[in-house]
């Protein structure tokens, strides 16, 4: 079997030679990585942290702060944890690809050059 | 607080295993 990879969404990006230089890509995507399991609720709750945007149900779980001059990052998870990390340049850029089984389409939607990485043990919130 | 939002930290990081990719796994 064989299927084309569409790069329609990347066109303007590739043509203009723009690429990610900070926490998110020019197309608005971000890659966040944590050394551990991130437990989040999977069911709706009547709580201010739960919202609906464009028919998607979301849970707000964290707050991220980046210090661009030093590439340091702080991540607050829930109400109790604080993680220290950094903006890391990827050794090899990563293409973000969606495999849409329903429509039989494969699309490269973005390219990540950086990720925000948290590999230290979470600290309590002081 | 019944809503659990929590990072369970892992001491190490492992990524040594590599395997070929099957066609069906692209779509699952």
């Amino acid at each position: 079997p064989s299927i084309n990879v569409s790069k329609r969404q990347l066109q303007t990006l590739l043509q203009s030679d723009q690429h990610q230089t900070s926490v998110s890509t020019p197309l608005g995507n971000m890659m966040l990585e944590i050394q551990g399991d991130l437990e989040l609720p999977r069911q709706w709750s009547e709580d201010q942290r739960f919202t609906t945007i464009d028919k998607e149900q979301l849970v707000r779980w964290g707050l991220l702060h980046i210090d661009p001059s030093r590439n340091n990052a702080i991540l607050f998870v829930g109400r109790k944890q604080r993680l220290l990390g950094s903006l890391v340049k990827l050794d090899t850029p990563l293409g973000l690809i969606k495999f849409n089984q329903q429509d039989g389409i494969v699309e490269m939607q973005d390219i990540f050059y950086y990720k925000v990485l948290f590999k230290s043990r979470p600290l309590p919130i002081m | 607080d019944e809503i659990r939002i929590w990072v369970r930290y892992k001491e190490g990081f492992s990524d040594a295993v590599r395997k070929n990719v099957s066609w069906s796994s692209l779509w699952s």
Partner: protein
Amino acid sequence: SLNLHERLSIDRSFRLLHLTPELLEVLKDPNSKLQFKAAGNDEDDGDVVLCSREKTWLLRQKNHSNTTMLMHEFTSEQETPLETTFGLPSPMSDFAGFARTTFEYETKEVSGILNVESIPIHNGSSDFPPADGRDLPVKSMDDLLASSACSEKECLLQWGQLGGCVIKGYPCILSSDFLTKALHVTLMSAMAESLNFSRLRLGETFDAVNKDIDQESNPYTIDVIKTILEKYGEKVKDDDDCWQLNQKKVAVWYGIRALKKYASQSSIPPAEFLIKWKSTFPPYAPFDIEIEMLRGWFFRPTGSSLQYLPKNTLPSDIKERFMMLFKLQSQWDMDDIVPFVEELNSKGLKIDVFLMKYARKRRVGKKVIISSR
């Protein structure tokens, strides 16, 4: 600061793919295309590769133990309550996680392999192809390309080398016997019409072959002639319709057939073999021949005489292959033995190093002799 959210229902259809500099170049070229491919059909579940028009990359899944979240910026309709406890600037944007991944696809450039598993062998008989392509699983070159884990360029190169032919749209591979006959007829006809071996045009060559042949029973269709030119020639640069005959390739093809015919049951002295080999060519054929051209197809059971030895009769295990070769011939000239074993040098070691792993090497004058350990 950024508010981080995650969707309650995660999308599992996203993947992360390593983009090497070569792959990035392909992406940036507006005329290029990339395809995910695998050998066979959907159900066969072969290994997935990524192909540009010219290259093939094998996908390797690298699992990891971290949580990776892929997020997209959005505009929140709500006024998010200020989190004043942390003493940080109030959040300015919102990101929502839409996917999580626990692996990445690495990409390793490899040689693509044409999938000829279901391609029929055609010996020139008039009953190919069957009506409507009944019983032919591969019904077109497009089908063949789609079911091969191989870039188009690599596929077509291998196809030409194999003697692949497309008859009434259906791919087939010409049998050795049919290739031999078609080559012979093509050479004779080309010489009879004084065609230039360095610039053989398909149309002219076909006309030469088909002069005076009864079209009813003629197996040498234009597709067959094209296959002959592809297999035994090289396309002339910047000319889509013109081939230069590779005289060495033709000579070797005749030589292997001659070894098979005259040196299978017993060995033959080289001088006698050269005469026999020459006799198999069309009369007045201008091809130079040397025994060394057939290295990898013969061994020397006693002294200098030659005996036919096809590689497909040898063990595929490297130790056993060396054992068999030394059983047939106790000492080998290095140049004679290398073509029999180099295909098993899977790690790509320098040939000297490779040989020394399994055999003994010593110099005798200008020659390098290989024998068993």
